[in-house]
Every structure is written in C-alpha cells, then in structure tokens.
C-alpha cells in the first residue's frame, strides 16, 4: 500500500513538472539570429537600430536581411524589429555591434547597457564605431558572406595582424566601467564596395571625443600591448620610404616620484625586419640611419599623442593603472587632478633584425 502511494506521488510530480516546467523551444530553423546590429542617431531621445540577419538559401548562398526600427531603448527596438520579421529574432549569435559616430558623440552608455545586461550576448562580440550611417553600412552585402560575419572577420583579422589593438565587448566594458581608463574602439568606414578599418575612436567615459591619427596608431598599440606582428612605414629624407614589418614590441613602464607628482618613463623595445625600401642600398650605415630616424619619429609621435590625451583628460592607454599599481594608498581624485600635468616620457629602442634577401 505504502509503495503504491509512493509511486503515485512520484508519477504526479513528474507529470506536473513536465506539464508546467516546460519553457519555450527555439528551433534553429524557426528563429532569426541577428549577426550584426547598428545604431544611428535620430534626435535627442531617439535612435534607429538596424539588425542584420543571415538568410541561408537552399542553394547554399547566404543572403542578408536587414530590419530597421527606431525607438527610445535599444531593447525596445529589437521587439520592434521582431514585429517585422517572419521569425523570432534572437541575439545569441550577435557578432558585431556598431555605433555611428553621431550616436557615439552623444554617449553610448544607455546602449551599452543592453549589451552588458543580456546574458545571451557573447563577451567576444566586437564593438566598433562607424563613420557615417550604420544603416547604410549594414544594408550592403560584402563578399560572399552575410554582413555580420564579414565585419567580424574583418575586425578579427586586423586584430591578429596587429593593425588595430584587440578589443572585444569584455575589454570595452572593463575600460568603460573603470575609473582609471577610458575606452577606445576600432573605427570603420564604408568605402565604395568595401569596408575599411580607418583607425581608433577614443572615448571619454561614454562619449566619443576624437579619433587617433593614423600615424600615431602604431605607437599607441606599442604602448598598450606587446605587439607581435606590427608594421610601420617610415618616411626618410627626399622621398625615400622604408617599410618595417613583423615588429614585435615590448614596453616597460617605470614610475618615479610617486609621493608628489608621478613621472612615467616608458621604454619601448622594437624588433623588426625591413620589407621594402625605396633607397639604393641597405648597408650598415643606412640601417643605422633608419633605426635612428625611426626612434626619433616614434618618440615625437608618442609625445604628441600623449599630450593630446592629457589635454582631453582621457587615458585610453591606462597610465592610471600603472601608477595605481605602484602606489600605496592610491588616491583616485588626486590622480585625476594631476593627470594633465604628469610628465610622461617615451623612449624607443629599435632593433632591425634582418633586411630581406638582398642588400
């Protein structure tokens, strides 16, 4: 008798759990997985969101479907997009999030929140700023893939090559939430049929302030991380150019005078190979010349770049963290006040390892 009751209870529990414990199923063929999303500025409290969804056709071709909607909150726009789509739109496969420069200028804090709050969004998502309207950029089809995958491959490839510093959603959120650093994002632009990585967009808190000049990009990366495969083009006197490739860099930070106003001395070590040279011969003297000039040029660029950062009171490289990690009882407010006047010196030490197969 007791055993019968037991069996009955267990059956009832399993039955109830099966009946009421079910959640909505999402079958891959019945959902639309957005692969890229872009935000454009309309007016002060309205934005336009564009979502790109790959459309897998029976002939193994991948097409694009773009949906656009405008609303106050980015999540809300997604439901609006959902209304247009024949299938449910989910954002678990989102690869790229783009913000137009206009949106970035007005601050992307509220938009970023939807990315950091949603557990289904990957931390490896690429966030980027787009020159012009993202709507136009995303509406086009590039290459033989859907736009989202194409953009993510474009950015990823360039990060691996060392053309832009590695950034993903996690690193962006880390910098964005940090008191000591300001975020930066890759800047992309549409040029005819291609999309082009233009440079780096710098932010103050969540506002876009300026983009880094292309010639400063190399030293920016060298200060930020240890490069593996950098390339640098150097203009020598009288129209001679030299391209140095496979540069790997190492930077060492030294902070002195921590008690009062800290001074930061950075030593950057570069090792590279000459790939192209428009001069006549690459003999010992010439190489020495190239090396000297490269060091001088980079130091000049670094000084100009850091000065512009200090003027804008932004710290994308994270000097603040370097000072903090060397200071006991670090006082945040004091550092913020000091930052524009802190002396930051960069010393470059270049070594040219090889010069190719000819002299």
């Amino acid at each position, binding site marked *: 008798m007791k055993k019968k009751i037991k069996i009955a209870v*267990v059956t009832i*529990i*399993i039955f*109830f*759990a099966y*009946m*009421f*414990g079910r*959640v*909505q199923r999402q079958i891959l063929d019945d959902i639309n997985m957005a692969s890229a999303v872009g935000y454009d500025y309309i007016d002060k409290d309205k934005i336009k969101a564009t979502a790109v969804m790959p459309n897998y056709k029976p002939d193994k071709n991948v097409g694009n479907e773009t949906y656009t909607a405008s609303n106050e909150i980015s999540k809300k726009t997604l439901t609006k997009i959902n209304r247009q789509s024949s299938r449910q739109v989910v954002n*678990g*496969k989102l690869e790229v999030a783009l913000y137009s420069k206009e949106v970035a200028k007005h601050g992307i804090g509220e938009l970023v929140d939807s990315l*950091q709050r949603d*557990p*289904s969004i*990957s*931390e*490896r998502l690429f966030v980027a700023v787009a020159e012009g309207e993202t709507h136009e950029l995303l509406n086009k089809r590039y290459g033989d893939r859907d736009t989202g995958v194409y953009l993510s491959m474009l950015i990823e490839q360039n990060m691996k090559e060392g053309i832009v510093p590695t950034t*993903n959603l*996690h*690193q962006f*959120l*880390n*910098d964005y*939430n*940090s*008191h*000591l*650093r300001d975020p930066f994002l890759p800047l992309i632009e549409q040029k005819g049929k291609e999309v082009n990585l233009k440079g780096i967009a710098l932010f103050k808190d969540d506002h876009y302030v300026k983009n880094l000049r292309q010639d400063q990009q190399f030293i920016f990366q060298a200060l930020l991380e240890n490069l593996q495969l950098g390339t640098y083009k150097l203009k020598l006197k009288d129209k001679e150019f030299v391209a140095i490739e496979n540069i790997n860099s190492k930077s060492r930070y030294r902070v002195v005078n921590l008690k009062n106003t800290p001074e930061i001395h950075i030593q950057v070590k570069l090792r590279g190979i000459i790939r192209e040279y428009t001069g006549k011969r690459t003999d010992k003297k010439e190489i020495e010349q190239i090396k000297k000039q490269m060091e001088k040029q980079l130091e000049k660029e670094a000084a100009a770049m850091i000065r512009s950062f200090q003027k804008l009171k932004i710290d994308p490289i994270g000097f603040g*963290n*370097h000072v903090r*990690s*060397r*200071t*006991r*009882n*670090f006082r945040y407010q004091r550092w913020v006040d000091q930052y524009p006047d802190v002396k930051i010196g960069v010393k470059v030490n270049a070594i040219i390892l090889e010069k190719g197969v000819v002299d």
Partner: protein
Amino acid sequence: MKSVIKDQFLVSPFLVLFLIHGMQYGVGVLSFQRDIAKVAGHDAWISILITGILVHIIIWMMYSMLNKTKGDLITIHQQTFGKWIGNLLSLLFILYVLAESTTVLRSYIEIVQVWMFPLLKTWPFALVLLLSVYYVVSSGFRIVTGVCFLAVVLPSYLIFTYVVPIEFSTFRNLLPVFDHSILEMAQSIKGSILSFSGFEYLLFYYPFIKQPESSQKWAHFGNLVTTLLYLLIMIVTLAFFDQAYLQKVIWPTLMMWKIIELPFVERFEIIGVTSWAVVMLPIICLMFWSASRGIKEIFKLKQRSVLVFLLLLSFIVCCLLIDRETIQQYNTFVAEIGFYLLLGYIPFLFICCHIRFKMREKG
C-alpha cells in the same frame, strides 16, 4: 544515549576529503568574488588565504570536540549544556541548516532562470530537484557520500576553464600587494568565510566515518583543495575584471566563462551552469540528510518522514522567494547567521565543551 551505527553504514576515512571539499565548493563559487573584493579590493586573494587558515583551525576544533565525545553535534550539545538546552541549541542549528539548503536551491534556480531559461517557473524545477534529493537521502548516508564524490570528480574538468580568461587579463591589477588595512582585511573575511562554509556538517556525519580519528588529515586536505581552487579563481577574476566593473557583475565566474569560445559550442556558460547541477545536488542532499538525521536523534522519529516534511518546508520557502531582491535579502540574512555560527558559535562551543570535560574529570 549513544547509538552505535552498524558497520555497513560507515564510509572510509578518505571520503571525508570529498565530503568536505564537495560541500564547500557550491553555488557560492559562481559569485563569491564580488563580496570579498568590495572591501578588500585587489587584495581579495589574501583574504581567501587567511580564511582558508581560519577554517583549518575550526576543523581542528571540531575534531577535538568530536574525538572526545565520540558522537555528533547532538551528543556534544547534550553533554555540554544538558538535555533541554542542548536539544534546543541543536534544533536552532538544524533550522540554520534548513535555511541554508533553501538558499542553495533557490540561488541555483535563479542562475538557471537568469542565464538559461528566463521563462522557467521556480516550483516545477524545485520539485524535481527535491524529488531527486529525496531519492538520494532516503537511500542513506553512503549514497550521499557517493554523490558527493561524483560531484567533485565529474565537474573537475572545469578547472581548465579558469585558465582561459588569462588571455584577456592584466595581472598588474593585483599590485600593490597588502594595500588594505588590517581592519578591511578582517571585514572581507566575513564575505569569504561563507564561500568556505559546508565543513560544519562534519558535526553531523562524524559518527558515520570508519576510524573517525584518522579522517582528520583528509578533512584538512579537503579544505586545502578548496582554498587553492578559490585562490586560483580569485586571482584570475581580479586580473580579468577591473575593480569598478567587478562590483557591477553579479556572477563573475559565469561572466568569465562567457569569454570561452569552443568550435562546437558558442556559449560555454550554459555547459557550466548545467554542470553546476551536479555540483549543487549533493550539497542539498547532505544538508537535508544532516537536518533529518538531527531531528531523528532529538525526537526519535523516523528519518524518512522527517525528510518529507523538511523537503516540503523548503519547497514552500523556495517558491515564496520570487525576485532577485527578496532572494538577495534572504541570502544575506542566512549568510549573516552563518558567519556568526561558524566563526563565533563553533569556537564558543569548543571552549564550553572542553571546560565541561575538565570539570567532569575533576569531579
């Protein structure tokens, strides 16, 4: 008073390693970093080390009491404070065990709801989990130990996943070492002792160990494993997150899993959350086992009927905790009690117990 447990229900001393470590390593692992870092900042890993040592001392205290009385918490209480007060204290302890088991259950369901299925209702899931808890606990202590063993061994592959985020870490975040005052470090222990809690159930299952005196080294070893594992997770977390960002993240460990990308699975944290069901189940099992065993000892009731009653109670409380805020409130409340219980009451009991024994020897 003492009831001798038959030889066939006993477990080997080395299994205490799994019982101690398995109980400590629970739902807290997914979220413990934030509470510690709130006070101790980038020195949070030191707080883990200090707490690990403290827990070693408490384990030693418990063994010293248990070896003397040759019983469990209930006999210690009865011998120290007399029958009535002793039983009342045991009952309060059991109440805490029950509250904690509900915390574990509800926290896990919340994680599933937030990270996997937002539409999942609490009660069907709780019902199924508690049904399996009944199944395990009613089969006896040996089965509970077996599940504990599995819970340590099966998800042990997850240790590799804590290494992956290093790619995106800056270990400079950990410097300068010892940048916080002693007071701040002491405060942070309050946060970290809870992630270590779980060893106190030794007070209940001690009589079920074969040659219990020899199991002490395994208990210490279990705690050592926990300390080292927490240390690894903490250091990676501190390097992976900026301090200001870490304060925003509710489940830092799950957040770290989000960065893992495998060719065959887009979101690793789904696997992580699912694996956590295996980690969490024996914890609830042993908690219910301890609670029902305690009540059985005090009131001389049948353990199974007590168990059914306790499971129902926990189920009701679990369903009453609806949103994040109430869960948070309930968790902090239970955590507060747990802190005083582990660092205050057990040492107090240790002193009382020894005074009592000294008195008895003299008299």
